[in-house]
């Protein structure tokens, strides 16, 4: 389902575009991201794949500044941040308002019910009333197929359910871009499918999505734009189908063979 060059997804888009320019990040001597640039159009689904240690998650975490790059520029919609400069609280808040994130380990708040997990950030960040926030939370729970779970605590939910709650929690803040950091890696394959189904639906609605994943099927079928990373750089990028059938670099070929032939 590769997208043509003139992207119809953008027409029905609910998202914003994202671009990263010349991102550099090192931990001491170890360079994790070596001058990485990337641009994701409005409404596009961008999948980032590659061997572990390639810097995929670090790159993703740079987009909402959970990880602070040493230098480079991050732009989301019309918020631009120069990572080399001091970032003000207001600027940081402005950036994070636009960007939702889903983690590998869900990171739900275990002392709150599913409903409160989704409602609390809306109340504190957007100033919604409790009733308003909980209405919105219920609506999203229904959308991710968990309309019967609002009163449960996260520990009583399966991993797949927890991850769907985490997606609902992020969506409740009306982000323009969603980041997914290996959202199914901590899940049994079967439970992962529930999560992928929700993500697929979100993609169809035109959300701008950047997904670090080991789910090759998802990367191939759902993404419009595939990025293969290795050793802190982009090895290649382009149409997923083309990269899967005819990888341009040897490293990509070896990686794809390793993941596809298991």
């Amino acid at each position, binding site marked *: 389902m590769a997208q043509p060059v003139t992207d119809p997804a953008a027409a029905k888009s609910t998202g914003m575009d994202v671009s990263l320019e010349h991102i550099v990040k090192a931990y001491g001597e170890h360079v994790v991201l070596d001058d990485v640039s990337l641009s994701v159009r409005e409404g596009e689904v961008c999948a980032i794949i590659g061997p572990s240690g390639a810097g995929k998650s670090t790159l993703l975490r740079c987009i*909402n500044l*959970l990880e602070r790059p040493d230098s480079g520029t991050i732009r989301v919609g019309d918020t631009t941040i120069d990572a080399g400069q001091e970032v003000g609280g207001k600027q940081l*808040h402005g950036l*994070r*308002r636009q*960007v*939702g*994130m889903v*983690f590998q*380990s869900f*990171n*739900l*708040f*275990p*002392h709150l019910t599913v409903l409160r997990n989704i409602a*609390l*950030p809306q109340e*504190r*960040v957007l100033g919604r009333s409790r009733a308003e926030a909980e209405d919105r939370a219920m609506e999203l729970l229904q959308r991710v197929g968990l309309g019967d779970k609002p009163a449960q605590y996260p520990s009583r939910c399966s991993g797949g359910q927890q991850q769907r709650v*985490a997606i609902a*929690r*992020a969506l409740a*803040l009306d982000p323009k871009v969603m980041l997914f950091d290996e959202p199914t890696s901590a899940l049994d394959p079967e439970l992962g499918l529930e999560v992928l189904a929700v993500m697929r639906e979100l993609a169809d609605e035109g959300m701008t999505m950047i997904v670090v994943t080991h789910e090759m099927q998802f990367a191939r079928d759902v993404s419009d734009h595939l990025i293969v990373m290795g050793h802190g750089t982009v090895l290649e990028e382009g149409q997923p189908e083309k990269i899967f059938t005819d990888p341009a670099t040897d490293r990509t070929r070896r990686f794809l063979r390793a993941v596809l032939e298991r």
Partner: protein
Amino acid sequence: MTVLQDWLGFLPQLASGLWVSVVVCLAAIVVGLPLGLALALGSSAGSRALRWPAIAVVEIGRGAPALVVLQVFYFGLPSAGLTLSSTMAACLALALTTAAYTSEIIRGGLQAVPRGELEATEALGMSRPDALRFVVIPQGIRVAIPPLMGFGVLIFQATSLAYTIALPELLGRAYSIGSSTFQYLSVLALAGLMYAAVTIPASLLTDRVERRMSRHLA
């Protein structure tokens, strides 16, 4: 059965002493615990201006024996122009000790909250104070409750130190009965039993709460 008869005779005075001990202990906890939370937050704060004074108070409060703090408050402060009643001095001195020790217990609890949840609050755009108030503190306190209850038992026992500043608490009463009747063994034994009558149920309760909490975490 003269011992029991003696004990019945001692009981009214000792009971009023026990009451003083309990009140001082509760006052120390009521004042010390919020202060302990504040010190816990202060000593893990990013800003140095907050962190260093908090660490200093915690280290002094934990480093100095409770008996010394008590003596300083009662005998020392008057020379600095501040005279406190023995009850006030006992409450404040034990509150300081409580604050210093509980701050470390609470800090341990706060640190037990997984890093990922803090990242989630950041990614959601929640402010740092909100993250503390709604995510970190409620969970951290829950983890800290059993050790805090254990510390409560210790501070209750530490109220006996206040007999050195003439506070008529349980040990003070027992001592004064002993010095007028010379039945030290008998009256001190009864006082010891009365302390135990509070601490043993409290410790059992602590164990139960601890088991409950760990069951919840599993």
